[in-house]
């Protein structure tokens, strides 16, 4: 158990001194997805060459709706400044950065997995891909819940939906403004989601102030006729540290 806990006030104070106020993040050139070469956050998050397996790619379990929308967004990555986010088995693979010292836990747990890639059997758990548009700070997640995510018989567990939302919020918050930890999360459920159907999540970053990122999300069917949830999330900005040699 971490005795120190999570001393937000102290941490925020420390970071304000480091970052100056107001916090200005490197601006991305809308014309190019990656911005300047000094934008190390993006280049670290989206390695150009890697041997890690990217789970956010089509496989045989993807339904037709998902494949179609995937193609549409793939086109947008060529023309409209969208980026497809890779998805690796562990967050450590993405970032290679640690929470600030004092918070980090030594992980001798061996094989850790990011929650939304916990079930690696194709089609059984979370099938998803996230696209991010840096210029508008928007993202879209195409999500197909598999049979191991059941809640009410034949329908998706609301917890798994919350998990997918939190994960998309988390990646969006990180890329839009170094958001790291969820502070709060509010979900209004409108409709049940049948197993193995496509869910589209539209996420927008609203304001960023006081080291907090405010985001909203609507999840709906492909034809937008059915709204599944309305939700909002607030994330804490934290500067991550370089990984120390183990």
């Amino acid at each position, binding site marked *: *158990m*971490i005795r120190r*806990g*999570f001393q937000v006030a102290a941490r925020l104070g420390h970071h304000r001194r480091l970052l100056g106020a107001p916090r200005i993040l490197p601006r991305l050139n809308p014309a190019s997805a990656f911005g300047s070469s000094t934008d190390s956050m993006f280049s670290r998050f989206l390695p150009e060459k890697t041997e890690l397996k990217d789970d956010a790619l089509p496989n045989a379990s993807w339904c037709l709706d998902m494949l179609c929308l995937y193609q549409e967004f793939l086109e947008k990555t060529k023309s409209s400044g969208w980026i497809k986010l890779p998805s690796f088995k*562990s*967050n450590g693979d993405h*970032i290679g950065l*640690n*929470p600030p010292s004092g918070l*980090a*836990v*030594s*992980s001798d*747990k*061996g*094989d*850790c*997995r*990011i*929650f*939304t890639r*916990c*079930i690696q*059997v194709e089609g*059984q758990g979370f099938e998803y891909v996230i696209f991010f548009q840096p210029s508008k700070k928007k993202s879209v997640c195409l999500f197909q819940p598999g*049979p*191991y*995510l*059941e*809640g*009410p*018989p*034949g*329908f998706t*567990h*609301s*917890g*798994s939906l*919350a*998990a*997918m*939302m*939190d*994960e998309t919020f*988390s990646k969006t918050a990180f890329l839009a403004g170094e958001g*790291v*930890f*969820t*502070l*709060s*999360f*509010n*979900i209004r*459920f*409108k*409709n*049940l989601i*049948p*197993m*193995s159907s496509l869910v589209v999540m539209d996420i927008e970053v609203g304001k960023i102030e006081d080291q907090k990122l405010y985001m909203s999300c609507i999840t709906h069917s492909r034809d937008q006729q059915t709204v599944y949830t309305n939700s909002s999330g607030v994330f804490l900005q934290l500067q991550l540290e370089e990984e120390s040699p183990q």
Partner: protein
Amino acid sequence: MLRSCAARLRTLGALRGPPGGRRLPGREPRPALRSFSSEEVILKDYSVPNPSWNKDLRLLFDQFMKKCEDGSWKRLPSYKRIPAEKIQDFKTHLLDPKLVKEEQMSQTQLFTRSFDDGLGFEYVMFYSDVEKRMVCLFQGGPYLEGPPGFVHGGAIATIIDSTVGMCALMAGGVVVTANLNINYKRPIPLCSVVMINSQLDKVEGRKFFVSCNVQSVDEQTLYSEATSIFIKLNPAKSLT
């Protein structure tokens, strides 16, 4: 407020089997990609200690089992799948049964029980009818990671949702989640044990208000707080 064409129900808590469940010998097969007797999967009760449970979880489990001795508390069994008769019960409340695809139902598993021992959600729930309290003892395994070394916010949301959902269901029968609101105070380290204490706060007509907090074993650290609203449905009736 919900005005949906498909009712949203929570039947997770409708799994009332005999305490302890009926155990079948041997390990059960893992993914349901081939057909096998669905009875084997349904009957194993997962809310009992297994080798992955750490000391804190076992201690708490024993404390709560003691509370069950006089009948004021009871331990809820927990299965991977819902028995056939409960599925029928769910369908009578559902307005559009066509949405439920029969052939898929034999392959499904309750999300929080879709992991091998110790890797995902290790948990047990205890209920007090007098106090209208549902307590969940939870140990989050390495497949629930979010920020390196900590439990994913979505995994926390999942176990909170399961706990408050059960609490509402015990009080109200077939209920629908309308709203879930979570405040995260501190991140939860992976493989540590926390207690989710949920309470039915009030009932207004068909609305059930349930709140909870997530604390450390010694109750000294508050990790998160949540509030939720559930709505009781009438069988096969629209919400409007």
